[in-house]
């Protein structure tokens, strides 16, 4: 059995766990715990403290694992470990919480420094009325036009599929360009 993996990262409450949950064929192995910080507690009650872990069986010989990174920065020692051997990564950004955009950018840079693999940025919660426009987010996140910033609704399987496919197209494109 061959295995490959992708990592889903992003700031606290960006929707990483839901993203994996939407496409994983197993109940994701999630280690959520109550949140200690009062400010974060006002946003949601629990967060991922170790990692989420989802699986998509491709065929009898190949399995894709999806790893979600911990939601709180004090667990960022896990990032380097998680980034090892990944095909690529997805940076989830909560489109309704501009106060997290800077952190999303910082996470993106850190992951890219750990492993220079292809990545896409998913602008999550685009179905909500407070969501920022994609073009504004691209500007604030300092994303080059070559970097894929894609509208996302993590609760919608088709939307999640589209993100995963865009990442795979990027990986394939890099391989065909001989840069990988």
């Amino acid at each position, binding site marked *: 059995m061959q295995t490959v993996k992708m990592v889903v990262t992003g700031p606290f409450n960006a929707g990483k766990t839901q993203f994996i949950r939407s496409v994983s064929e197993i109940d994701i192995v999630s280690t959520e715990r109550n949140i200690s910080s009062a400010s974060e507690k006002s946003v949601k009650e629990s967060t991922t403290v170790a990692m989420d872990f989802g699986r998509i069986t491709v065929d009898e010989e190949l399995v894709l694992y999806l790893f979600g990174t911990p939601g709180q920065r004090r667990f960022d020692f896990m990032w380097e470990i998680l980034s090892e051997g990944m095909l690529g990564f997805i940076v989830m950004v909560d489109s309704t919480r501009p106060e997290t955009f800077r952190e999303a950018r910082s996470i993106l840079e850190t992951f890219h420094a750990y492993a220079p693999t292809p990545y896409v940025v998913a602008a999550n919660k685009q179905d909500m009325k407070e969501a920022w426009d994609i073009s504004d987010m691209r500007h604030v996140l300092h994303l080059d036009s070559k970097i894929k910033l894609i509208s996302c609704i993590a609760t919608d399987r088709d939307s999640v599929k589209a993100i*995963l496919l865009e990442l*795979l197209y990027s990986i394939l494109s890099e391989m065909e360009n001989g840069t990988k």
Partner: protein
Amino acid sequence: MALRGNLRDFTITQLLNLIKLANKTGTLVVEGPSETARVAFRDGKLAYAQIAQEDSSLAFVLFKAKKLSSVQYKSIQQRATHISDKELGLLLINGGYLSQEDILTNLQQHFANITQRLFTWVEGFFHFDNDSPPPEDRISVRLDLENLIIEGSRHMREWEQLQDEIPSLEMALKFTDHPGTNMRNVNLSVEEWRVVSYIKPNNTIRQIASATNMNDLEIRRIVYGLLEAGLVETSRLSDGITPVPSMRIFPSKDKEEQKSLINRLITRIRSL
């Protein structure tokens, strides 16, 4: 009971508060990840501080503060190796080079800077040695700890913010392709120019800090300013120094098999 423990359990702020409240006399030894600091107190006031690996001699402190020229500093190093700081201080005062206030102010600033650096240490062990006064050959000061604690706490908050902004020093820097401002028209400080001069795709921020003799806080502060100004951006290393993931990305090394694997993934995801 011996005052010793781990910085994870007992912060520098708590330690300094305790020393102040108990009017302690002795030396606090803090063993950080890469440095060891010795900070001496007398009656709950800061008397002396030194990072083990760094020169804390009076001559060096005054040279760093630009109170001595490089020629004077070299001359002292060559000719006055056997005299103590106290003797050197008297010579400088009697020779009319510096006043007593000059010497004490610069030493206080130097010791305060060292103590404030400790606020950024979150890993390490400490112990307080009651029987160890400040070194006799060195000049000690009497500095209240209140302001140091307040200032140190500010540093700590700034440090935490900068760590969020620049989480890793193992990244390289590059000039932005289309900076909003022309570099020639930017007013940079001497320290900023020194950092800018080392920006190359294969130099990590940590290497730049080492080359410019800056600590983690100082280099983060400058890099953050350059990032905010849109002059530079972080990038991965370009010369192969980037840590290569030890785990293999693909099960096979064959390029065609790798492409086939990606195509199988695409087909599977589409079918979900």
